[in-house]
């Protein structure tokens, strides 16, 4: 990041704008998004810096950043952007692009969580917490966090040993398949 960044091409800008529906090119670097971002202290790049790097076509820097996975989708940035840029939607698009391109992900835990969560929905129609957490731990290799909390969760009946199946599971699996086909067209 110490090197001077040079404008390369606008392929990244065009793709992000098309897929997110957000006009990233309207950003004039007021930094209002970064100022109100609750996660800013935990980010390697601020949201306003991400916007600028998209302008400059710095694809690897953006897609391999920790920041896109640290974002909590709270949408404070989107709500406050004076240019009406849906910055939270840009973050979603960048996460999808990072996974599709198998970028060297800044942090695998959040993408692993997303994967485990959606597998659970695909399989049961609804989230089955205990199964989802087991799968998350296996794919993220984040084996021990929160394990100490399981007994209390069970005591408070906040976790169940059996999934709640929706009677629409077949329909849900078809929806997943068709949604994946739709995404390929973008």
């Amino acid at each position, binding site marked *: 990041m110490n090197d001077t960044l040079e404008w390369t091409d606008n392929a990244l800008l065009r793709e992000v704008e098309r897929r997110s529906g957000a006009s990233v090119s309207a950003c004039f670097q007021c930094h209002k998004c970064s100022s109100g971002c609750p996660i800013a202290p935990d980010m390697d790049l601020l949201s306003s810096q991400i916007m600028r790097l998209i302008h400059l076509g710095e694809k690897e820097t953006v897609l391999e950043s920790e920041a896109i996975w640290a974002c909590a989708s709270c949408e404070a940035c989107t709500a406050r952007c004076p240019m009406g840029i849906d910055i939270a939607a840009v973050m979603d698009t960048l996460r999808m692009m990072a996974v599709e391109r198998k970028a060297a992900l800044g942090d695998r835990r959040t993408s692993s969580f997303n994967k485990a969560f959606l597998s659970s929905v695909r399989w049961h129609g609804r*989230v089955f917490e205990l199964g989802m957490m087991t799968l998350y731990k296996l794919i993220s290799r984040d084996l021990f966090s929160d394990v100490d909390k399981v007994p209390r*969760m069970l005591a408070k009946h906040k976790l169940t040993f059996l999934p709640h199946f929706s009677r629409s599971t077949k329909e849900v699996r078809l929806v997943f398949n068709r949604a994946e086909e739709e*995404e390929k067209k973008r």
Partner: protein
Amino acid sequence: MKYAFFPGCSLESTAWDYDKSTRAVCKALGIEITDVPDWVCCGSSPAHASNASLSLALPALNLHKAQTAGYSEVLTACASCYARLRTANHAIRKDPTERERAQRIIEKPYAGAVNVRHILDILFNDYGVAEIEKRITTPLKGLRVASYYGCLLSRPKEVVAFDDAEHPVCMDKLVKVAGAEPVDWPFKTECCGASLSISKTSVVNRLGYKLLSMAHRAGVECIVVACSLCQLNLDFRQADAKKDQADIPEIPVVYITQLLGLALGIPPKDLGLDALMVSAASILDRRAATAGQAGRRA
């Protein structure tokens, strides 16, 4: 008043007390709710961060189910389900490309006819505080409460739009009608870290401490929420959030339906108060005190 109810996955597990108290309060107020038949997950944060088509289609599938069952309004209690159903519905109504995409994926002709409503919106705007007030039997007199709305009920304002995005007040007014004292504090719509709870726990604990310590500085005895993720992050993770930080007392974090339910005279066990990690005994003591006074007066 009849609504189709979309409980969502968390109300079947970690937030079963929100489910129980929502049903109890609706019953006490005569608000008829029936579950959306065979509902499925709304996709929540993982869908919108992974596959835009899926985060459009799962809500559309559920709203179509509600429509087929003859409902024009779907009620949610979970703020995340609310935001996802409402965001997808907004896109389906506004953008023909998105509408066609949703219809291709679910293979149903859903075009955005169903309205998505949150329990706060229903209680405040449809039912109204005046009607609720008539049914309050055990007001929580003098209880100082911070209303915490979080992100998903406040943003984006074009989509959620039932209160002010930066300074919402509807929950404060419901707290007031319960006889308690809503306290003004600056973090009403700050983020708790939401779904990062599992994958980035340290971030959630940092934000949790920030919220809890501000609520404590505002002099509150409890925090009231209307989102299962806010509740989980502030209650379940409270002990960890306070670890290694300046000491502040335990602050119970209850759902608005639990607080309102107590003031409506619903027994604590029917509101799932035993599910809280940080005990709500202090709130119950307060209620017992007012009930006692009322008893003596009578």
